[in-house]
C-alpha cells in the first residue's frame, strides 16, 4: 500500500517536524545562549535572543570556582562503570529469559520493570543507611553499584527484546557444533546482537550520566559527578542564571556530542523489532 505524497504535503510535514524539534530543543538552546550572557542580561525582563554582548566570563568564573575535570571524570567512571557491569550481568540474564524461558519468566520481567515504576525516593532512606554503614557514601564504587542496580531492569529488557529477534536455531546449531554455553554466548550470540548491545550501552550511559537523584543524595565532594556540579550553582546562588547555564552547558555537552554521533544507533535501538 503505497500512496503518492505530494510535495506540498511533504513540505508541511517537514516544517511541522522542524517546529516540534525546535520546541523540544529550545530549553537547551536557551541555556546555551544564556551561558554567554552577563548576569544582568540573563535576568532581563525583555531578553534578547541573539543580539546581546557575548561573553565568556561565566565559563571563566565557573572554572575558577569548581573543578570541572574532576566532576567530569566522576561522571565518566560512574556512567561507564555502571553500564558495563550492568551489561555483564544482563547478557546472561537476557539469554536465559529469551532462549530458555521458564513458567515465571514473563512475571520476572514484569517484576523487574515494576521496580522502575516505584519512585526512587521510596528507598532513599534504606539505601542511604546501607551506603553509610558500608562506607560507600560519597564513593564512586557506591554510586556504580546503585546505578547498576537502578538501570539493570532497563538493560535486561532491552537485551531481552534484541535476543528474542535472534533465531534459536542458530544457537542450537552452535550447540550441535560443540560450543559450550560460554562459547555460544561469546562467539555466536554476542556478535549477532552487537547493534542491540551497542544501543543498550549508549542509552544506559546517557541515563546514568543524567541520573541526578542518587548522584545528588549519595555524594558530597569526592565522587560528585557533573549533576552535582550543576546543582552546586542552583540552590545557594539561584539568581546567577548565567553561571548556572554555563555549568549546565559544560555538563551536558559531552553527552550531547555522544548522542549526536550515535543517533542512528539510538534510533535503531529504540525501534528495533518494531518492523521486521
Amino acid at each position: 500500500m503505497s500512496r503518492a505524497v505530494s510535495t506540498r504535503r511533504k513540505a508541511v510535514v517537514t516544517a511541522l517536524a522542524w517546529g516540534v524539534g525546535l520546541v523540544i530543543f529550545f530549553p537547551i538552546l536557551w541555556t546555551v545562549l544564556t551561558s554567554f550572557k552577563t548576569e544582568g542580561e540573563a535576568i532581563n525582563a525583555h531578553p534578547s535572543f541573539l543580539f546581546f554582548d557575548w561573553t565568556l566570563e561565566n565559563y571563566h568564573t565557573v572554572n575558577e570556582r569548581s573543578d570541572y575535570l574532576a566532576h567530569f571524570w566522576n561522571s565518566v567512571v560512574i556512567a561507564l562503570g555502571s553500564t558495563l557491569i550492568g551489561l555483564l550481568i544482563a547478557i546472561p540474564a537476557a539469554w536465559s529469559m529469551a532462549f530458555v524461558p521458564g513458567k515465571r519468566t514473563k512475571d520476572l520481567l514484569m517484576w523487574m520493570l515494576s521496580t522502575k515504576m516505584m519512585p526512587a525516593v521510596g528507598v532513599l532512606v534504606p539505601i542511604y543507611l546501607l551506603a553509610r554503614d558500608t562506607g560507600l557514601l560519597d564513593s564512586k564504587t557506591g554510586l556504580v553499584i546503585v546505578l547498576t542496580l537502578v538501570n539493570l531492569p532497563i538493560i535486561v529488557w532491552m537485551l531481552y527484546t534484541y535476543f528474542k529477534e535472534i533465531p534459536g536455531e542458530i544457537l542450537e546449531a552452535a550447540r550441535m557444533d560443540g560450543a559450550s554455553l560460554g562459547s555460544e554466548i561469546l562467539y555466536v550470540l554476542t556478535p549477532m546482537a552487537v547493534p542491540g548491545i551497542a544501543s543498550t550501552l549508549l542509552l544506559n550511559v546517557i541515563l546514568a550520566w543524567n541520573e541526578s537523584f542518587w548522584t545528588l543524595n549519595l555524594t558530597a565532594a569526592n565522587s560528585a559527578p557533573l549533576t552535582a556540579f550543576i546543582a552546586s550553582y542552583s540552590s545557594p546562588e539561584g539568581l546567577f542564571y548565567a553561571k548556572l547555564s554555563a555549568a549546565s552547558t559544560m555538563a551536558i555537552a559531552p553527552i550531547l556530542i555522544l548522542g549526536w554521533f550515535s543517533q542512528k544507533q539510538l534510533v535503531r535501538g529504540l525501534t528495533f523489532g518494531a518492523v521486521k
Partner: protein
Amino acid sequence: MGEIVLSEVKKSFGGVSIIQGIDLTIDDGEFAVFVGPSGCGKSTLLRLIAGLEDTSSGTISIDGHDATHLPPARRGLAMVFQSYALYPHMSVRKNIAFPLRMAGVPKDEQERKVEAAAKVLNLTPYLDRRPGQLSGGQRQRVAIGRAIVREPSAFLFDEPLSNLDAALRVSMRQEISELHRSLKTTMIYVTHDQVEAMTMANKIVVLNAGRIEQVGSPLELYKSPANLFVAGFIGSPKMNFIAGAEAAKHGVHTIGVRPEHIAIAADGPWKGVVGLAEHLGSDTFLKVQVDGIGPLTVRAGGEVGLNYGDTVGLAPQAGKLHRFDEGGRAVAG
C-alpha cells in the same frame, strides 16, 4: 559406526504427549527418512536424537553407547536445520570451520578440512563471503559443509529443502543422495514431502500422532502399506479408498486402489463420468464420479483425450487391490 537405536522413547511437553513410545533401529550407513504430516512428532523425534530436547523416558543409544543424557555436542552427530542456521556474522570459511574451532583443531588442519569440504560442495569461490550474500541453495550447502567437517557418525537433516524453490529442491535432493553414497554415513532426514522420502530413503519411517505407523523400504511401503494411514500417505496422487458394498464384495471394510492401477476400459466393471481432467503432458489425472462408488482419481496416459463430462469405463488391475479391516489395518491376501 553410526547405528542409532531408540527404545521406548517418549516425550511430552507440559502434559501433552508428543512422542508416544518409539522403538526404532537405524543401521549404520542407512539413509532413514522420517515422514508424516505436520505435528506428527517427526521433528521432535529428530531433536531428541540430536540431544536438543531431553527425552521424558526411554533410551537412545548411538554406536552402542547410551547417549540419552549426553549433551548434543558429545553425541558425535551433525545437524542441518530448515533455516540453515548459519552464523550471519562469520564468513563461509569461518562458518564451516566453527565446529573444528570449538573442538580445538589446529588452525592449519581446520583450513585443510574447510578447503576439502568446500571443494566437494562447490563452495570454493564463496569462502570469503558472508551467508547473507549467498543464494538459498548455496546457504544450504554451507550448512551441509559445516556438518561434513565434523566427520559425524550420523547426519541429521530437519526439512532442509523446504525453503528452496521446486527446481533447486530436486537438484539438492540429488546432491544429498550423492553425498550419502560417497560418505556412506548414516543419515536421518525429516520431511513432510513423501516424494523426498520415496526418492532418497533406504528406510522410511512413517509417523503419525507421535507413533510409528510403519517402517520399511520405499517400495515395501508402496506395495504393502500396513494400514490406511500409510496407504493414503505414500503415493501421489493419493490411493483411492472405497467402502461399502464394493468393499464387501472383497470381504473387507475398505478397499484401496492406486490411481495408476486403474485402467480405462470401455468394458470395465466401473462406469462413471469425468469431473476433472488434468493434462500434464506425460500423464493425465482424471477425477471420475463412479456410480455407486463415488469419486475416484485415475492416472491415465498423457495422450488420453478424455475431458469434462465424458463417460468412461474403469477396470482396477487384478492383484493390485489393497484390503483393510474395520480398524484400518491391512488384510493379507
